């Protein structure tokens, strides 16, 4: 089954996974309100009920959920932009500073507006229809065209022309095409395992974040199949992976 068709029943959304993704990218669903953990749980339920792990669709799922997580974490980090990642730290800091100042400025302005609004509390205006003698269509045609402001039909053609413009398409290419698959990372890890033991840092050296994420998943898969175990001496420390056949000594 393609991951796109994975049926979800969440607080904020019910429907297939690919539609959820589309709606999130178009900001019709607020990513803040979407519990990504629920999406993961729905996927795990699906895995459990289907009883088999299709590595291709697993890859697809990880890539997509990772993309959503990245998107959400960026939103949470006060609107960091993609370009920021390619900038030098000082440039990125400047850019971020400008954004933070902007956001802060208008938050303060919003507070000011709310004060104004409250100060005007209790002031009401009259909104009654005009008396009968004044209710006459103001656009009634008269002989004197200048009085009603003759309209130019070109206005209509221009409006249609503007509406015919296709907006630039939203591209999903960068996340819908996995650059890395669980299958490939499994093969990579198995190659390393032939040595009996390897370090996770080494396995993902030079890899991008997506590859690292998929490699973690491949590692979990090796563990599930009983091919490998690992240990980690300290939090955030290197993970040492070893083949299960080898007599092992687990540290920590």
């Amino acid at each position: 089954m393609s991951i796109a068709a994975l049926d979800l029943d969440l607080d904020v959304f019910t429907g297939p996974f690919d539609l959820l993704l589309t709606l999130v990218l178009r900001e019709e669903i607020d990513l803040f309100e979407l519990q990504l953990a629920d999406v993961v749980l729905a996927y795990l339920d699906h895995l459990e009920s289907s009883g088999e792990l299709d590595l291709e669709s697993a890859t697809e799922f990880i890539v997509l959920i990772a993309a959503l997580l990245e998107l959400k974490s960026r939103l949470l980090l006060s609107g960091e932009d993609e370009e920021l990642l390619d900038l030098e730290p000082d440039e990125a800091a400047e850019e971020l500073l400008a954004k933070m100042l902007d956001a802060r400025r208008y938050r303060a302005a919003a507070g000011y507006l709310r004060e104004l609004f409250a100060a005007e509390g209790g002031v009401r205006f009259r909104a009654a229809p005009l008396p009968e003698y004044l209710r006459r269509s103001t656009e009634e045609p008269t002989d004197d065209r200048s009085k009603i402001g003759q309209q130019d039909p070109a206005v209509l053609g221009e409006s249609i022309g503007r509406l015919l413009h296709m907006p630039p398409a939203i591209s999903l290419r960068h996340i819908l095409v996995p650059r890395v698959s669980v299958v490939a990372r499994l093969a990579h890890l198995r190659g390393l395992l032939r040595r009996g033991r390897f370090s996770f840092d080494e396995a993902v050296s030079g890899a991008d974040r997506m590859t690292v994420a998929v490699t973690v998943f491949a590692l979990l898969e090796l563990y599930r199949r009983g091919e490998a175990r690992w240990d980690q001496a300290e939090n955030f420390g290197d993970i040492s992976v070893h083949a299960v056949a080898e007599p092992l000594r687990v540290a920590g």
Partner: protein
Amino acid sequence: MTDSAEHAHTIEALLFLSTDPLSPRELADATQASEEAVAAALTQLAEEYAPGRRGLRLRELAGGYTFATDPASENAARRLFSRPRAFTLTPAQAETLAIVAYLQPISRPEISRIRGVSADSAATILLERGLIEESGRSQFGAVLYRTGTLFLKLFGLRTLDDLPDVARWDPTPEEQAELRDRLLRAGEARSGGGPGAIEE
């Protein structure tokens, strides 16, 4: 300021706000005062707003009280409100009117789909001004709209065939599809309605 002056002020404000005449009972309930107090306040207001003293008068109508303008202001009011104003279409109204003009009869939901945002307030104003009118219902029960005689007069057209050819403003004139289909496609791409906008 005395309590009774304040009470009269409140009643003045209520009469000013209300579209319909207010009865002494309603005024007493709203101001949490006795009907006697309301009567006293109304007497005071009737004096202050006696004919000729202000631009407004306090009138007793249909068992209630209401403010009305002094007839002396009628000519000025006519000049202000009945004067044919050089009316201008807002961009939203121009878009909505153009869609109705070229695609009539057409329903509101369809207009909104083409615009990519709601067309409700624009359509309501065009209806009020008599530039568009209802024209039956679609097979799904939505009200359909068309332009009327006033539209043709305002735009100096004899018939709808005189509408300018859109080709002049068409960004992709080589496209063969019908105008309606192309507008719907572009509109859905703008609002994110259909999968057409997503490149995969």
